[in-house]
């Protein structure tokens, strides 16, 4: 029985996990690190483990140290959150060796399903459709070129260890192939420490639809329907919604059933996500499985009412799933906006620094999962996610309306965020109609950010005020020092 959890993560997801743990009467532990000694999330832990003296380690990436801390503090279980070690099979392995419960699937599941090449093979075996591609991993450019020629360009080169949009490159044609092949391998090697890749046919206008699954250790498995994640930049999700506006009820059931086939075939347990691509004819293809809780899990929670973290903990406890598939109903519509510290006007360049202001309204249609408050620093050494605004509505139309009001009420200062981008998305025709694909950013919008009416003029007024305030101040200083009036005059004339 889990009575205490070490949350081996930071920012909003650590707070999210702590909230459920608290509800269940479970004691939580988090790390105090030298990178973020004043992290906002620390206030949500029952106990803080100070590792700030160890300036050589990123604790969240160190399997041995995390598990050792759990053992030293007599902590029952470890929740890895997302990112970091959440899909590293060595963490559950080490947990098992040291008698700590890992809140997630077994290392075997992570190894198999987290490896895109193996997962693909399993999908083929259980009759789930996949895209045309290489049979296994590709070890040389020559081999890659041969297979690409067979299946036809464009192709996508993917790292077997990849995730979160990293380690993926599209080669448009034969000439493009060497450059992209090298880039994919390099990125995979630097980020995942594993440079193995495989190749698949690239769909030009795909949608990204993923199914949330839950399985217990007794072989029961259900799905919580799908999320639509087609609004992406550089293969990284920015915004998600549930349910997907692209699916008919028939297709929804079919994709859900396919996701369950994979779980049953592998005996998968804990929460997981089965990702599919949809082509323009709404054919679906299995892409990969994520064996962790996802950033975008709240949209599913919003429409189904299921607390996914609670289910993860219960499953790790060995409890049988109390939920039956027929209990899961879709109620309403939910969007998630990833408020990242990024400069949309500079093509989403990261914008780390001090958050001078983060004012969020209290609204019944808003769930705001944040890792920061005003006064906190967004460090450059971690990802740029600041907060997630989850906005709901009875219908999709209503949710869009609610979101457009709420996004205008959220005020940020000190850093730039993705909010002006989301305002733009909400007023873009293809999004409003639900007819959008992963090329949305390149194809459907010309300017990445929304400008309010007279915004530029308002900005100019503020600039002019700043300028005159400065001059008046110089003037006042000058007067105090009894500088002759002509000096003043020349300053003003510039």
């Amino acid at each position, binding site marked *: 029985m889990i009575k205490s959890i070490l949350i081996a993560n930071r920012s909003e997801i650590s707070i999210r996990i702590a909230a459920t743990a608290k509800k269940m009467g479970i004691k939580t532990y988090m790390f105090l690190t030298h990178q973020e000694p004043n992290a906002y999330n620390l206030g949500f832990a029952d106990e803080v483990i100070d590792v700030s003296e160890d300036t050589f380690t990123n604790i969240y990436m160190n399997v041995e140290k995390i598990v050792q801390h759990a053992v030293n503090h007599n902590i029952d279980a470890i929740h890895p959150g997302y990112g970091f070690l959440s899909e590293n099979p060595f963490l559950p392995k080490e947990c098992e060796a040291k008698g700590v419960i890992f809140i997630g699937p077994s290392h075997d599941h992570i190894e198999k399903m987290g490896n895109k090449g193996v997962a693909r093979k399993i999908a083929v075996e259980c009759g789930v459709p996949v895209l045309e591609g290489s049979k296994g991993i590709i070890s040389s450019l020559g081999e890659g070129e041969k297979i690409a020629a067979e299946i036809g360009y464009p192709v996508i080169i993917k790292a077997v260890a990849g995730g979160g949009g990293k380690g993926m490159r599209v080669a448009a044609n034969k000439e493009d192939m060497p450059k992209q092949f090298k880039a994919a391998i390099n990125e995979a090697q630097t980020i995942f420490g594993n440079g193995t890749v495989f190749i698949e046919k690239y769909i030009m206008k795909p949608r990204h639809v993923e199914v949330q699954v839950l399985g217990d250790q007794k072989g029961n498995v259900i799905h919580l329907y799908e999320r639509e994640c087609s609004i992406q930049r550089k293969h990284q999700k920015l915004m998600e919604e549930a349910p997907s506006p692209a699916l008919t009820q028939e297709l929804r059931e079919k994709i859900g059933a396919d996701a369950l086939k994979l779980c049953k075939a592998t005996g998968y347990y804990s929460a997981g996500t089965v990702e599919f691509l949809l082509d323009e004819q709404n054919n679906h293809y299995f892409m990969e499985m994520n064996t962790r809780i996802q950033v975008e899990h709240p949209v599913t929670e919003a429409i189904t009412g299921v607390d996914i973290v609670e289910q993860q903990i219960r499953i790790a406890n060995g409890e049988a799933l109390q939920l039956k598939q027929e209990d899961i109903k879709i109620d309403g519509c939910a969007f998630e906006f990833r408020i990242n510290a990024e400069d949309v006007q500079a093509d989403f360049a990261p914008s780390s620094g001090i958050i*001078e202001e983060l004012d969020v309204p209290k609204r019944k249609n808003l769930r705001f999962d944040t890792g920061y408050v005003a006064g906190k620093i967004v460090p450059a050494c971690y990802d740029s996610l600041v907060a997630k605004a989850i906005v709901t509505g009875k219908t999709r139309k209503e949710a869009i309306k609610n979101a457009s009001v709420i996004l205008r009420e959220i005020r940020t*200062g000190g850093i730039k965020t993705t909010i002006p981008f989301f305002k733009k998305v909400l007023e873009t025709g293809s999004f409003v109609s639900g007819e959008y694909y992963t090329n949305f950013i390149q194809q459907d919008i010309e300017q990445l950010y929304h400008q309010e009416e007279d915004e*530029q003029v308002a900005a*100019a007024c*503020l600039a*002019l005020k700043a300028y005159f305030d400065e001059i008046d101040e110089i003037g006042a200083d000058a007067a105090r020092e009894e500088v002759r009036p002509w000096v003043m005059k020349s300053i003003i004339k510039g």
Partner: protein
Amino acid sequence: MRSDKFIVVEGTKPVLTLKSDKLQAGRDEIVPEITEVSSNEFTIKIKGKEHFGEIVSLKQNVCTVNVNGNTYKFSIETEKSLKRQKKLAKKGVSSNVKITAPLPGTILETMVKEGDKVAKGEALMILEAMKMQNEIVSPISGKVSRLMVSQSDTVLKDQLLIDISPK
């Protein structure tokens, strides 16, 4: 009362003029209400609509502000200084383009060396920051006149990376 005429310019486009205490945007006269709600947080009310902003920097006559989450960079000119600028622009004075690091990070790879010809939009190097690989591309066509960093260098924000001389 300020007697000179001031023009607030974004890029080359005049956005706002001030003359005899009268503010004009295009043909419209506007009366903005600017309130500092807390330290460096302003509301700007124009035509009944409220905007929210902060002053990012002011250096000489160049002012950068954020309004509703978007950044605007203006220069505040007089008629004289504007004329002078137009003259300079006509002469076609152009100088080397210095590219600085948009954020702190590590140089993962450099794709060019000094003396290389580069086209506008061509990738010069990859800067890894905040778990993202950012391609630094050339804003102009020209020649690499100086390369100040090499692979695996750590760079600070605004650190000079590369100098491109225009063709």
